[in-house]
């Protein structure tokens, strides 16, 4: 292993994607969004975005429609909990271990 020649003299990092690696692989279930129910998609307006607001990993976009970055979504399910119109369901990932 080589020392990172970063020139820092104290512990330092910048906000960025993926300091903990591709955390999407930690997930055992993923959020499935029903766009017929999801407010911004349904009304075609930049509204609600509670999922974007509460996502602890900032992997949900504030767009119409909202999008989840599954490379980093850990599948915690907070978005499904906070969605006021119950547009999000958590769906189990298929484990590659089962036959």
């Amino acid at each position, binding site marked *: 292993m080589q020392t990172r020649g970063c020139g820092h003299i104290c512990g330092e990092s910048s906000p960025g994607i993926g300091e903990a690696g591709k955390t999407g692989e*930690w997930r055992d279930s993923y959020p499935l969004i029903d766009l017929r129910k999801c407010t911004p998609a349904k009304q075609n307006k930049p509204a609600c975005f509670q999922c974007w607001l509460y996502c602890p990993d900032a992997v949900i976009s504030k767009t119409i429609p909202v999008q989840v970055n599954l490379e980093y979504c*850990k599948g915690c399910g907070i978005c499904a909990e906070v969605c006021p119109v119950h547009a999000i369901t958590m769906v189990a990932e298929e484990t*590659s*271990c*089962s*036959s």
Partner: protein
Amino acid sequence: MEITGANAMGTNPSTNINKSLYEIRWHGRGGQGAITAAKIVAQAAFLEGYRGVTAAPSFGAERRGAPVSASTRISQEPVMVMSQVENPDVVVVLDQTLLKRDGVTSGLSTGGWLIVNSGVDPKELGVEGRFNIATADATRVCQELGLIVSGLIVVNTAILGAFIRATKAVSMPSVEKAIKGRFPKEAVEINLAAIARTYEMTKLEELRK
């Protein structure tokens, strides 16, 4: 060094360990129970008469779903080595998706065992090295038996069936005893059933000598 002689339980040694220090590394994901598996095997080995056993998690913050590892060391003498396992005799993988990560088989001794929770044949795993491979579909066993805790299939005990079958490092009765000592009464039966079923279905691919 062949380990012989009466052990602390007063029974005959029934295990297959022929080294002064036997090291096992466990790879799983947070919540699968890799650490508990490491502890059960340490306990079982102790029950067989090994005076020196240690079981340790990978150090630091562990999170559900994130890759974790653990280690078990078994010896006739008290274990003095406190550093991380570098050259395991056995690597146990509780989640096949971890196999693509670097470091899972790293340092695995020549002639050692790679044991993977997988439905495929050892030959089809796509892993190559100078070691033996065993596979068993512990996930399916647990699904069939309903060994699911908080929505997560807990494969740590089931995979012990494959571990015992492949390595013979500890015996089934010792593992049973360890589980009875550690688990609440109502959980014992289902876990033992998972071990027995996985033991039967384990596929072995031994290194040609």
